[in-house]
């Protein structure tokens, strides 16, 4: 991605005034429009497989935005984890499960209107919020020269070697991030165990107690009562927790 | 109990036993050690427990009956709190296990234990789930007795609520056709009132401050135990006075002292325009009048009384209604006298409205039991009127002898109504057990079939009517007379209500007992009263006549405490409450009230 500006510059450097073009803004606009445009396309598309593909493009463009902001580590992580990991998983899942009825997902007209209203309201709120903080409106000073990976790595071991931010109060604590680093590993272990449990085949040596219990039908009087309850729930309002 | 306790708190075991023995026996009965089928045993054990508690309460209240008079027993003629038991319970909140009796609560305790014996005896016909019934019954008795003797507001509230759940089950399982509706209605109404009471309790607690009381007041309200020697008393008083932050209290006597201070802490805080005193009085009043009950929050009572089984109706009408009146007398007025003064019109008005409404509603009933239920509403209206006339300021002077007469009348009315309404419900129950209906239109000629029963029943109903010579008359006449100074109109209305009362009771007697012959269903089941029923009815009739002829027996207990409380509040009114009023010179001597 970073080779592109150089190639483009080399190709059109001769006839065009290269120095006059603000390459940073150009690439920002490019990545931003790709990112937002394909995000809209994800929502607007009907076909699940196409949605997945548009998502790949949108997240990839977001990685480009990170690179432009000088956070190469974050950009690299975005590409590795989101595009490389999560999205490949998503595409595999869609491939394996997308049957004929699921390939096309249509939202009803009413849902679209409601979602549109909520989305536009949220967008207006967030734009207002973003623009109301003055320093966020100024463009970034430029790409920071020193690589950010080393301070991040050191802080994950517990040692903060980066400089404190300019003007920050001296009393502000700057903790090392070893604890989150280690705790996350335990968290991943637990989550892996949970995922493995859920994904395991259902054949068991001994049936579970609840399965033995559930195989016996509840008394008829109770089942009748329960079905009446469920009927009532079906028509209940969402606010009362009934299924709409 | 340590030897020290035997000297300083002689009433510890007697009072605690009176309150908790029924609960202990209930816990033992609830265990699965009694095999199924031994229902007679359970009934006799429960009856024996109620008799033991009754005898204990008699021992405390009427010492000369048993010979020796010890320190734990009640001294007639003494006005203050007797037999005070104090043990720390929750030090973090200054909550104590504080019990005590005086002239107001002692007769009510004896009434409760007496009616519990009769109701337990009347529970013999109950055949389903006998064990559960008696367990709940005994728990109910503990709750009722606990309310009457507790002097700590938190403890009072706990006992007040303990009664609700057993009553819910007693009505809901052993009651009539609409029992579930009646039970839940009773519970919801009472719980609503209780929650309002809790808010008032908390508000009073957090604005109270023991540092504002003088040493004499601290000792008098048992914050500092009077049984300590002078040195430790002085130390305790000094410790309280030296505290840096306010010391809050739940002690009812101390709260009353605080409420009657010239600069009462409760009148100092103001919420949305009204002082905290008025808010607390209103919240507590709502909680108590739901129990009394007073129109318009009385609608739970006809359903609950009608659907409950006979013995539970007896307890409901005989005891539970009195809890409301007791609460107003013991709590509302002493702690919030200013509010009592300003809102006297509300209390009296509610009383008179209940009286008249209850009487008219009773006149319209076709169900015998429902008629008796509405008559309870009407009779308790007299109690409200008698209590409310308390703060009466007539013209430029207030007459505290009229106050005393009103409150004495209200107390007597509570006790007399306990006897007469329990009797009325029992009589209705006797009839219902035989013919299984309560329709007034289909009765008649019971006198011919069951002469003894009819004689006793008519006597009880006349007591409810307020016939002179029977117990119902004294309370009504004293209340009516006392309200004359407060408001001529209300006095005239309450006198007229006597006519209405006579109307519905006489009409009911005529429809049920008089007449040529009984033409209703199950006529062949009209057997004479059994020995058990006679044993229950006779004491009630006897007491109705006794207290009607010799009311002094009750007034000996009641009047000293009532007069002392009224006099204290009269002094408060003169000094603090109403600057313009002057007291009537002297006031009557204490024992003279009933000679009018």
């Amino acid at each position, binding site marked *: 991605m970073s080779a592109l500006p150089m190639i483009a510059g080399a190709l059109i450097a001769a006839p065009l005034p290269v120095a006059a073009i603000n390459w940073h803004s150009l690439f920002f606009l490019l990545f931003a429009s790709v990112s937002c445009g394909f995000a809209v396309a994800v929502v607007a598309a009907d076909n699940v497989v196409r949605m997945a593909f548009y998502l790949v493009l949108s997240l990839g463009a977001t990685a480009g935005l990170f690179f432009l902001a000088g956070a190469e580590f974050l950009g690299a992580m975005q590409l590795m984890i989101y595009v490389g990991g999560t999205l490949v998983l998503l595409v595999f899942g869609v491939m394996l499960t997308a049957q004929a009825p699921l390939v096309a997902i249509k939202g009803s007209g009413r849902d679209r209107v409601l979602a549109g209203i909520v989305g536009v309201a949220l967008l207006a709120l967030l734009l207002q919020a973003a623009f109301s903080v003055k320093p966020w409106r100024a463009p970034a000073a430029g790409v920071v020269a020193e690589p950010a990976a080393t301070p991040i790595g050191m802080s994950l071991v517990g040692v903060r070697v980066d400089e404190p931010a300019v003007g920050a109060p001296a009393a502000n604590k700057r903790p090392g991030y070893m604890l989150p680093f280690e705790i996350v590993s335990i968290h991943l272990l637990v989550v892996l165990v949970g995922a493995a449990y859920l994904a395991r085949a259902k054949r068991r040596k*001994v049936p*579970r107690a609840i399965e033995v219990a559930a195989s016996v039908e509840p008394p008829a009087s109770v089942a009748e009562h329960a079905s009446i309850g469920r009927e009532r729930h079906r028509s209940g309002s969402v606010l009362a927790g009934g299924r709409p | 109990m340590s030897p020290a306790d035997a000297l300083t708190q002689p009433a510890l075991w007697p009072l605690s036993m009176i309150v908790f023995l029924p609960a202990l026996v209930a816990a033992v009965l609830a265990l699965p050690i009694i095999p199924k089928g031994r229902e007679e045993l359970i009934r006799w054990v429960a009856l024996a427990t109620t008799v033991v508690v009754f005898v204990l309460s008699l021992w405390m209240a009427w010492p000369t009956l048993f010979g020796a008079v010890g320190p734990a027993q009640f001294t007639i003629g003494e006005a203050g709190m007797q037999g005070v038991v104090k043990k720390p319970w929750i030090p973090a909140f200054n909550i104590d296990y504080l019990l005590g009796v005086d002239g107001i609560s002692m007769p009510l305790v004896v009434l409760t234990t007496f009616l519990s014996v009769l109701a337990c005896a009347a529970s013999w016909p109950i055949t389903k789930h006998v064990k559960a019934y008696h367990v709940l019954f005994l728990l109910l008795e503990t709750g009722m007795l606990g309310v009457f003797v507790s002097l700590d507001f938190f403890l009072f509230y706990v006992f007040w609520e303990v009664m609700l759940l057993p009553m819910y089950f007693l009505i809901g399982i052993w009651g009539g056709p609409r029992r579930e509706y009646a039970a*839940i209605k009773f519970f919801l109404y009472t719980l609503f009132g209780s*929650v309002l009471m809790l808010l008032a309790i*908390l508000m009073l607690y957090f604005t109270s401050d023991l540092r504002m009381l003088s040493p004499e007041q601290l000792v008098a309200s048992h914050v500092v135990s009077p049984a300590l020697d002078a040195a430790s008393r002085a130390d305790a008083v000094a410790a309280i006075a030296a505290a840096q932050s306010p010391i809050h209290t739940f002690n009812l006597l101390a709260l009353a002292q605080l409420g009657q201070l010239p600069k009462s802490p409760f009148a100092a805080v103001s919420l949305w325009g009204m002082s905290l005193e008025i808010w607390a009085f209103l919240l507590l009043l709502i909680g108590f009048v739901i129990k009394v009950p007073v129109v318009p929050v009385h609608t739970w009572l006809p359903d609950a009384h009608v659907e409950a089984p006979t013995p539970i109706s007896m307890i409901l009408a005989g005891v539970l209604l009195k809890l409301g009146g007791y609460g107003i007398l013991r709590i509302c007025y002493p702690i919030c006298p200013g509010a009592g003064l300003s809102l006297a019109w509300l209390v009296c008005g509610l009383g008179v409205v209940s009286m008249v409404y209850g009487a008219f509603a009773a006149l319209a009933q076709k169900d015998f039991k429902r008629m008796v239920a509405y008559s309870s509403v009407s009779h308790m209206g007299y109690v409200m009127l008698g209590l409310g006339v308390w703060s009466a300021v007539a013209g430029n002077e207030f007459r505290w002898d009229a106050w005393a007469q009103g409150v004495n009348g209200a107390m007597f009315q509570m006790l007399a109504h306990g006897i007469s309404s329990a009797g009325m419900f029992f009589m209705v129950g006797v009839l219902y057990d035989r013919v299984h209906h309560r329709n007034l239109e289909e009765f008649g000629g019971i006198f011919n079939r069951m002469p003894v029963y009819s004689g006793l029943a008519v006597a009880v109903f006349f007591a409810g009517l307020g016939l002179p010579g029977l117990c119902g008359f004294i309370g009504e006449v004293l209340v009516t007379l006392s309200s004359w100074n407060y408001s001529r109109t209300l006095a005239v209305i309450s006198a007229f209500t006597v006519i209405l009362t006579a109307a519905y009771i006489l009409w009911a007697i005529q429809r049920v007992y008089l007449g040529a012959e009984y033409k209703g269903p199950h006529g062949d089941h009209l057997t004479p009263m059994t020995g058990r029923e006679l044993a229950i009815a006779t004491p009630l009739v006897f007491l109705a006549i006794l207290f009607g002829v010799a009311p002094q027996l009750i007034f000996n207990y009641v009047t000293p405490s009532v007069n002392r409380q009224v006099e204290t509040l009269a002094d408060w009114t003169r000094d603090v409450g109403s600057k313009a009023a002057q007291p009537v010179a002297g006031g009557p001597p204490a024992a003279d009230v009933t000679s009018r």
Partner: protein
Amino acid sequence: MDLGSLLTSTLTDTLEVSLPLFRVELALSATIVLVLLCRMLPVLRWLDSALVALGGVAFALWYAWSDLRGLPGSPWPAVVAATHPASQELFGGLLIFDSLTAYIRFLLAGFLVLYILFTKISGIPDREDGADFYTLVLGSSLGMCLMASANHLLMIFMAVEMASVPSYALAGMLKGRKASSEAALKYAVYGAGAAGVMLYGISLLAGVLGTCHLPSMAAELGRIVGDGADSFYVADSAGPIMVLTLGGLMMAVGLAFKLSAVPFHFWCPDVFEGAAAEVGAFLSVASKAAAVALAVRVAFGLGWLGDAADASAAGLADVRHFLVYLIGLMAAVTCTLGNLGAYGQTNMKRLLAYSTIAHAGYLLLGVAAAVAMLGVDPEGCRKAVTALAFYLGTYLFMNLGAFAIVAVLRNRLRSEEIAAYAGLVRSNPGMVVAAGAVLVSLVGLPPLAGFVSKFLIFSSLVEAITKGIERPLMLVLLVIGGLNTVISLFYYLRVLKVMTFDPPPEDRVAAPAPVWLPGALVTAVVVPVVLLGIFWSGLYAYAQLAGTFAS
């Protein structure tokens, strides 16, 4: 500073200061590893994973208990020689150890011990699934311990995720049942959405305030909100107020999800109905306790600077005012809608889910009172936190008892519908008495523990009213709390009514041979509900210790 001294200071801080106060979490982590090892090595397969888990959790309980007793101001002598400081930041400021941390860890460890016994007796999970189940439970509890001690936005997010994600899998434990899978999916999707919104809010807050460390954020916040002083990032102070509000609200979304506060409670009834009763017990007790502790941490962390009284104090008063109204409004709506939602329920677990929502509302009332008195009246604030701690203690027994009864009755009656409990008093009178005690305690009637808890919460509100602190709001909250107590009576009593009044169905499956163990368990959990209603000074003393951090 050069690298050498940085390394030394990090090592010292970790080994000498932080890890000794981190023993509970270390014990839980070691237990997770041991439980998994047991299943992995064939030579250890004969060992029941429940026993291993129980042993590990017992160790954690011991550590938690000695931490609690070692606090300054503790009325008991310290179990280990050294006592702890009153308040100590761990790992450079990421976590904080104080009385609230110690109390919540103690509560969670104690709950885990009872819980493992409960799951062993009720039969779910069985031996085969046990290792997975207990790993997930312990992992989630680890996250909950971190929630109670979080002092840094990163740790808040991490802890919430650590506590939530394993419970997504727990909700789907019963693999063969459609309701269970549906519950897990709903929970996961809802949780992911809430976490995303919370993270957005966290990023906004961190961006404006320039730091993620709660006390530093509070100082910055006070400067921005209070006298409009130039904060180091923001030249113009009028703008950020809106961003800060937005960030705070978004963060509140995540916290409300964890607390099942309205309007982010929609996952609760479906998850409780679909998941097993055991999982419902875990979610409703442990998850709520940790969520309440986290709410207190965030509110106190952002709204108060301790004894340091400087220029930010006035600004923080405004922040607290905003927080009180936010929490108070959420509390009022939560307890009302929770109680009203329970009215039409026919499934016992769904009813208990709405009851959990309502009780979260009552707990939030206490949090609102505490934040209102924070900084203004230290004594009252301490008492409000004490009330919360006491409520969580009794809530443990009440809800564990309720779900234990549901589980035992499920095993006997093969159903979790309320109609299946009809006339239970004929055949299982002991169970009905226990259920009655638990349900009446949940309403809040004396002489049971639930009444004392509600009494303490209401007394905090009244204390604020009588001292004139946020009087209108506190009055409204008090009235709403009282009214909700009354309306909640109806649906709790309906269950009791069905058990006692209604006649038993003729086709009821006969109970299997009587086993005393479930009855013993239910008794052991329900007896404290009764005892704590009468003799509550002991637990109150512990709760008072928990409240000492707020001074």
